[in-house]
């Protein structure tokens, strides 16, 4: 499995390096603007843009990692390079397991990286711009006005981030299954792509419905979010087993 994992990483590392590179550039701009703020005039605009860019790269990057993983799987099933993978003495559970594990690790490590970076940057921002505390309070009031008690502390944000990442991994695993069904069972049929897309939507809706079943009364916000994350991860596990079973029995490359 380690070797499969190594090659899954090798297939996707270029995109990850690009994401890291872009993040590094945006971060440098942010830091530069932050520390040059008083010495060389007003750089608030640059700070704002760099924060926006960092947020965009973080979210876009994590999304790209998932999408790229699905595209790689698609290539491995539908082009000649699939021979490389399926001629190895490894079963479908191992092959798909390596893909999902590589992607899960990338998403969560990427998530952790951007979360820590955001924490660091926010702390720096606070220390440089005291009055930002005011803005922060406004945001909190705004959210409360929306009628939802969202605890905007570190733990709360962390739970939300975990939930986002888990949901994204579940979405990727659903896309795997839809693509595998499309390649193994619907290959050559009419509306193959469309059926796969409908399947993706239906399976995503199913996850939402199941998550609804786990919304217990009287539980605090963080608890609910974490349970939803656990449900998403369990759902990803089920998608994995169904996908690998179909691949094992029906996929021809």
């Amino acid at each position: 499995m380690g070797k499969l994992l190594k090659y899954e990483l090798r297939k996707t590392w270029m995109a990850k390096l690009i994401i890291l590179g872009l993040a590094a550039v945006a971060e440098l701009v942010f830091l530069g603007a932050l520390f040059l703020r008083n010495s060389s005039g007003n750089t608030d605009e640059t700070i704002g843009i760099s924060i926006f860019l960092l947020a965009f790269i973080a979210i876009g990057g994590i999304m790209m990692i998932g999408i790229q993983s699905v595209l790689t799987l698609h290539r491995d099933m539908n082009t000649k390079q699939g021979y490389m993978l399926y001629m190895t003495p490894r079963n479908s559970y191992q092959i798909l397991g390596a893909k999902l594990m590589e992607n899960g690790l990338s998403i969560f490590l990427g998530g952790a990286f951007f979360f820590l970076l955001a924490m660091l940057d926010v702390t720096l921002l606070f220390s440089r711009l005291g009055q930002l505390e005011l803005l922060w309070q406004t945001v909190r009031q705004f959210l409360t006005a929306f009628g939802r008690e969202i605890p905007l502390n570190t733990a709360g944000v962390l739970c939300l981030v975990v939930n986002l990442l888990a949901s994204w991994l579940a979405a990727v695993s659903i896309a795997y299954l839809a693509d595998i069904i499309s390649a193994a069972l619907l290959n050559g049929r009419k509306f193959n792509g469309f059926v796969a897309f409908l399947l993706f939507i239906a399976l995503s809706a199913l996850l939402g419905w199941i998550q609804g079943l786990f919304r217990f009364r009287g539980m605090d916000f963080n608890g609910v979010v974490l349970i939803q994350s656990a449900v998403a991860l369990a759902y990803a596990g089920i998608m994995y087993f169904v996908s690998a079973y179909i691949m094992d029995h029906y996929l021809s490359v």
Partner: protein
Amino acid sequence: MITSKNLTKTFGSKRAVDGVSMVLEKGHIYAMLGPNGSGKTTWMKMAAGLMKPTGGEILFNGEPVGVESRKHVAYMSTEPYFYTWMTVADAGKYYADFFEDFSMEKYEELLRRMELEGSMKTRSLSSGMAAKLKIAVTMARDAQVCMLDEPFNGIDLLARDEIRACILQEASPEKLLILSSHLVEEMEAIADRAIFIREGKLVEVRDLEEMRDLDGVSMADRYRAIYGHVEGV
């Protein structure tokens, strides 16, 4: 060693392989013959475990092909299949990582014979060089079964001698080699048995020396006799 029992593969309404039953024994080099689209490649891909049969069975040492058989069965497809980021050395490393029967020493020796360098990018190899790389990386395995689909395609006359020599070196009483090629003459002396497939169906499996002895015909003659009226050659 490889048993094909009523093996069938359909693509939509087309029967690419149609009820092929045969037993292939170790210690022989089989030439698999038939015009393009007669089902040779599809049969090989099923034997390699890359394609799942629609019907029938394909067995390696009595067991259906799968993860276990892939440890012992080497398959070289007609089309290049390396990852685009790979160099020639990466391709060898990949095989070494996954196949216990792969020998890096043998690979390097084959690269020398095929005039390939480890630093060459697989993506930018000429078609002839890519064909040689496929052969080198496949033959560097000490596999019990070695299936080469069109090993002479895109390869010039001189290099073909080299490839024939490699194939003969690989042959042993414990191994089964299957070569498919439309260059029938290239296989005349190195193969000892021929499998004739037409439109997905098995026509016959013949011992070549016996055929020359009894019928006084070459493999190429037999090929013309079987397919001549189909292709008009």
